[in-house]
């Protein structure tokens, strides 16, 4: 909006500390685009500083804030500068745009209307080619990335199809940038496949020219096993068409043709007719081009070299790996069948269709919300491949759970399933079977017991049909490299609920395991009743005066977290919620606290059982069993160990009293604990009624406010909304709550202030020393306890405090390294 006489208005003057705490990220745009005066770097917020009232409360990605006025001289213009947003108003709108469901922006963003009649088809297509950014109710946002396009190609979509279909769905003419971007990203991907077929390795491609080009390369020529019948001829065979990919495009076309046929306008205009014709053509093309596959054989010993040679650094034809398990005669079959009663939900079938799209198994990652039946997807894949399966999970509790799942869904017997943990070192009887173990057990590099070494040898020596990787998001890349180096598997399937995309680990996963094959939409699943309908709430608890005074003191920096977690108002809110849900609704409640001191304190005051890293396996199992079965135990307190994989289907209320800084993934994982679909309470038939509750208690005016906003981002992007409750305790009224007198509160305060520094911090003693040591984790105090290898120990979260608070914990105040004995001593005190 041009015009020289833009009026100006003053923006409010921020308090200095407020302005300070607003993170400014240099955007990719060149700085000179902005008036020099406005580019002023500010100090990034450190979690250490007191941040007033969630100063960075931000709708979307705090990192996105670009410019903010910081003093009175700055002006805000109504017709803002052109460089402050993306102006794509010049894109050409198609005349029949109302019938089309999406907009494609030149920067790769895609906006999709969910109320379009072709939404379902467009969604299936988009999820195959783009990354979902946020998926609330009416308008979804996606972004095209090289990775997402790579994934699209790997399930069999080709460049031309992607462009044609995308253009057909788009309300605006496809921007040339996008066209070029798709060409560039997909041009070479997926053209060449490495197939293990009848135990020989084949380089396969529908394009003989590419194979010829590859064969000109020295490395590949050396590896080439010449075909006996002809000199340069390739083996030609009829490949199955890419069913999943074809379905996607076909569905879009069908839906559109239908739309036009029974649309409101009786005479289809020229554009519509064109559309129909184009659709028919594309269909015909898809059917014929995919039929012929050319391939040549290569030496098994040369596979690694050939693969490396084909990477972008070399010939730039990255190879997709596929496993032709039906024709694998060397590895013995596993007699595994799903039980007849097993029924798949539509999204489970869809993910399977993507994985086995052309009759072969391809490696990749499937993303489903917690509680949506990820295990069944993994087990179905195993039953489809029918070869030995190695299943890697995060802790020993979930090893037991996976074994239970295998027995529940399939005909496998006890002797065919072996567990390999620190307690159980089994091997299965017979030539094939299922082994379930933890990441840490496999990747552990230290000395092993004789028995353990024997099982490891078995694992390492076997050629596995399927490698199932549970909760892939929690495992660091190095550990993966190690595991994948040790285990030889034809097909790798990663399962996760939260592939948070901003961490760099995603690209590692992409190449270590494979592209993302499928990602479900949480909101759609909720609507269909496959997962619980959760009411999320953030409860604001004002700090009591005494606690806040201590919180603000400089020398209490280390105890800050404890102070805001132990805030008496928060305690009362927690007690009130527990009482309400236990007594009024008869719910099962989990309370999460990262802080062990608070966990113990809360649990003991409220007389509830609690589980943390130090709890023994037997004790854990006992408490969880009681929680599941007994009406007496309706509430359990969990530390971080409960975040992943502990399956507690009974729980439907979750209260979070302390958490790991701003980890979005932890928030989503915790929500996952209560997502398993709940049976409706008798009498409440309404489909949109909430049947699970997720409360985050935050102390007002503390760092927690800032963190909690950050943590919720992932879930908000999935379409969840967090209701802010500011006056819970006013509503509580006469409820009989503890800590309501000042004396009691001061007692707690004294206890908090007396707590040792290491007690006041987060639970870190849990992380095993040898395996998971990311760069920053080095600074954490750890106990190298081998006995804990089997616990929920493989957990790290991506986001760490970067502030000054992160003093190396291995050292004491005086700066000396702590001796192991003192560490043990401190541990004992806990």
């Amino acid at each position, binding site marked *: 909006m041009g015009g020289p006489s833009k009026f100006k208005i003053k923006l409010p003057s921020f308090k200095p500390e407020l302005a300070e705490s607003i993170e400014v990220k240099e955007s990719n745009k060149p700085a000179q685009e902005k008036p020099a005066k406005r580019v002023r770097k500010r100090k990034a917020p450190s979690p250490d500083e007191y941040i007033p009232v969630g100063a960075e*409360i931000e709708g979307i990605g705090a990192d996105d804030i670009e410019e903010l006025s910081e003093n009175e001289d700055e002006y805000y213009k109504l017709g803002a500068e052109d460089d402050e947003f993306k102006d794509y108003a010049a894109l050409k709108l198609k005349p029949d745009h109302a019938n089309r469901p999406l907009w494609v922006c030149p920067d790769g963003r895609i906006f999709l209307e969910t109320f379009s009649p072709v939404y379902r088809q467009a969604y299936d297509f988009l999820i195959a080619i783009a990354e979902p950014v946020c998926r609330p109710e009416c*308008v979804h946002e996606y972004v095209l990335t090289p990775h997402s396009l790579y994934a699209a190609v790997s399930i069999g979509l080709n460049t031309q199809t992607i462009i044609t279909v995308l253009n057909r769905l788009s309300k605006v003419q496809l921007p040339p940038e996008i066209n070029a971007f798709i060409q560039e990203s997909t041009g070479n991907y997926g053209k060449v496949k490495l197939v293990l077929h009848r135990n020989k390795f084949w380089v396969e491609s529908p394009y003989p020219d590419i194979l010829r080009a590859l064969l000109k390369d020295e490395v590949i020529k050396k590896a080439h096993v010449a075909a006996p019948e002809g000199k340069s001829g390739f083996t030609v065979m009829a490949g199955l068409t890419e069913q999943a990919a074809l379905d996607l495009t076909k569905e879009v076309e069908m839906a559109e043709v239908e739309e036009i046929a029974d649309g409101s306008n009786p005479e289809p205009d020229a554009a519509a007719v064109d559309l129909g014709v184009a659709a028919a053509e594309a269909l015909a093309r898809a059917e014929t081009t995919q039929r012929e596959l050319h391939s040549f054989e290569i030496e098994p010993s040369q596979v690694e070299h050939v693969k490396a040679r084909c990477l972008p650094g070399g010939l730039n034809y990255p190879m997709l790996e596929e496993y032709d398990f039906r024709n694998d005669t060397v590895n013995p079959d596993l007699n595994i069948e799903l039980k007849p009663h097993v029924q798949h939900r539509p999204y489970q079938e869809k993910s399977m269709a993507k994985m086995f799209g052309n009759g072969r198994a391809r490696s990749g990652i499937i993303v489903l919300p917690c509680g949506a039946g990820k295990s069944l997807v993994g087990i179905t894949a195993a039953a489809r491949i029918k070869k030995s399966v190695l299943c890697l999970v995060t802790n020993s509790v979930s090893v037991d759970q996976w074994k239970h799942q295998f027995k529940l869904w399939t005909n496998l017997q006890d002797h065919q399933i072996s567990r390999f943990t620190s307690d159980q070192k089994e091997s299965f009887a017979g030539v094939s079977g299922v082994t379930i173990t933890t990441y840490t057990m496999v990747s552990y590099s230290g000395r092993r017991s004789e028995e353990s070494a024997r099982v490891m040898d078995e694992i390492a020596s076997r050629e596995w049909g399927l490698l199932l990787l549970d909760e892939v998001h929690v495992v660091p890349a190095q550990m993966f490299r190690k595991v994948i180096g040790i285990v030889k598997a034809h097909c790798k399937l990663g399962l996760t609920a939260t592939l948070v995309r901003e961490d760099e680990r995603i690209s590692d996963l992409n190449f270590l395991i494979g592209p993302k094959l499928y990602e479900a939409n949480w909101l759609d699943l909720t609507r269909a009743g496959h997962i619980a309908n959760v009411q999320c709430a953030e409860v604001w608890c004002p700090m009591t005066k005494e606690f806040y005074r201590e919180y603000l003191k400089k020398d209490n920096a280390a105890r800050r977290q404890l102070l805001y977690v132990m805030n008496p108002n928060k305690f009362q809110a927690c007690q009130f919620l527990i009482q309400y849900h236990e007594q009024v609704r008869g719910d099962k409640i989990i309370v999460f606290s990262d802080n062990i001191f608070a966990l113990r304190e809360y649990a003991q005051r409220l007389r509830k059982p609690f589980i943390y890293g130090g709890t023994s396996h037997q004790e854990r199992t006992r408490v969880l069993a009681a929680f599941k079965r007994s009406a007496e135990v309706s509430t359990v307190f969990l530390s971080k160990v409960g975040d992943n994989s502990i399956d507690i289907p009974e729980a439907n209320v979750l209260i979070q009293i302390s958490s790991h800084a701003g980890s979005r993934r932890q928030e989503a994982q915790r929500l996952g604990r209560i997502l398993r679909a709940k049976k409706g309470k008798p009498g409440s038939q309404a489909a949109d009624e909430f049947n699970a509750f997720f409360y985050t208690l935050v102390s007002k005016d503390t760092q927690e406010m800032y963190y909690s906003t950050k943590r919720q981002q992932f879930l908000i992007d999935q379409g969840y909304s967090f209701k802010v409750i500011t006056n819970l305790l006013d509503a509580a009224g006469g409820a009989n709550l503890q800590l309501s007198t000042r004396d009691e509160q001061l007692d707690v305060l004294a206890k908090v202030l007396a707590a040792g520094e290491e007690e006041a911090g987060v639970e870190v003693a849990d992380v095993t020393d040898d395996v998971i040591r990311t760069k920053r984790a080095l600074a954490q105090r750890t106990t190298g306890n081998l006995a804990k290898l089997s616990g929920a120990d493989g957990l790290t979260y991506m986001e760490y405090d970067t502030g000054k608070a992160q003093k190396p914990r291995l050292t004491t105040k005086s700066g000396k390294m702590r001796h192991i004995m003192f560490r043990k001593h401190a541990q004992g005190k806990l």
Partner: protein
Amino acid sequence: MDFISWLETLPADTVGKLYTSHWACQAVLRGLTSLAKQYVIRILFLDVPVATSVVDSWTLQSSKSKHTTAVNRLKGLQLLLPSTVPSKDGKAQAYILHPVFREQLRWAVSKGRNVGTDEVPSTVFDRAPSRDQLTQYAQQQWETLMLYLVGSVDRPPSPSPLIKGPKLDVDKILAGAHLMTGSKKSRSIQEQGFRFLLSDTYSQLWRLLRVYIATGEERSRAPLGTILNFLLQLGFRDVGSPFALAELDDIQRNIAGDMAQLGLIMPFSAKDGSLWLAPTRLALALAGGNSGQLQHEVTDGFIVVETNYRVYAYTSSLLQTAILRLFTRCECVLPNLFVGVLTRESISGALACGLNADQIVLYLRQHAHPHVASRTPVVPEVVADQVRLWQADTQRVQHNSAILYDDFPSPEVFRLSAQKARALGVWLWEDPKAGMGRLAVLESGHQAMREYIKSIK
């Protein structure tokens, strides 16, 4: 402030004069709330006063407040005049409907007909603009005016070349309505201007017309009734049904020219060269009242607000984009879609412009896309709550001028003073441990406190 609220502010005899037009009476009736409307209809055909006690008995106790509002409004509009009725103990308070208003409305109810149903030659109809053209014209003129107000365009909407006469001084009207200060090059929007932008067209229109009528009176020395009557009559015409410019007198012709500039009527020339005027949809709002207006807003809705604070607006209008950018951070603009985010900063910016959270939420609700308009709540609860919380955040700190007392002669004096301060309701803070104690009280209580302390020393 709309038409009705404005009438209330006028002196009784002006209003009385206005009621001599049945158009004005009908417009007033339409502008009333449904309860007040009901009361007027009830007593319309009564020739005798109604006792206040009877009127008060018409509603249940639980709706007393609505009743009081309705009655007060009717009294304010001079519709209910005090009177008396004979009763057991002499005379009792009563109401009677304004006699002139009563006659006019009775006439309108029983014999009235719409304006503009006179015969129009078919040669004129052939040239009459279509509904789409009318809507487009109205939108273009009105939006240009709004854009001129926010400073996105340099010129106010252009007057129609067809109608000769003095041009409308847009700057004067905008300034008169306290929406803008200065003129031409040096204009700038006022705080009230932002609020104005967010309000509905009906209120916007009347706000400007009030000023127009007032300045028009000065200019043409026409009695108040003339302009207002013409405008109200315009409001009762059917959209698009043409009337001849030639039938109007000079004053009316000038007004017609001005209204054409604002987009209320669209002038066109018939085959024979005669000039005709067609009222647009905007003109309907003149006599439409609030209720009529809201309905058409719903079908025109274009905004979708998501739980993740995103605002998607199906619009290519510069004005709507500009308004949205008052309180959202714009992410990108597509040919027919605006994508923005409500952020703490964008809302703080809007609050600083003089908007408030409720207005923002109301705007989002009133302009909701038909697809979301049916869901409840239209604007996700979390978003509405958060916008209000952001506003509350800016109001957490309260400033009070205060006086600090220290150096008390004894702890006893301190204790008594603190007690006194509490009793006076001016106590703010005390610290008994510092010296002989320190005490802060509101400045307003300083005089009383000083005297008290002197008295007990």
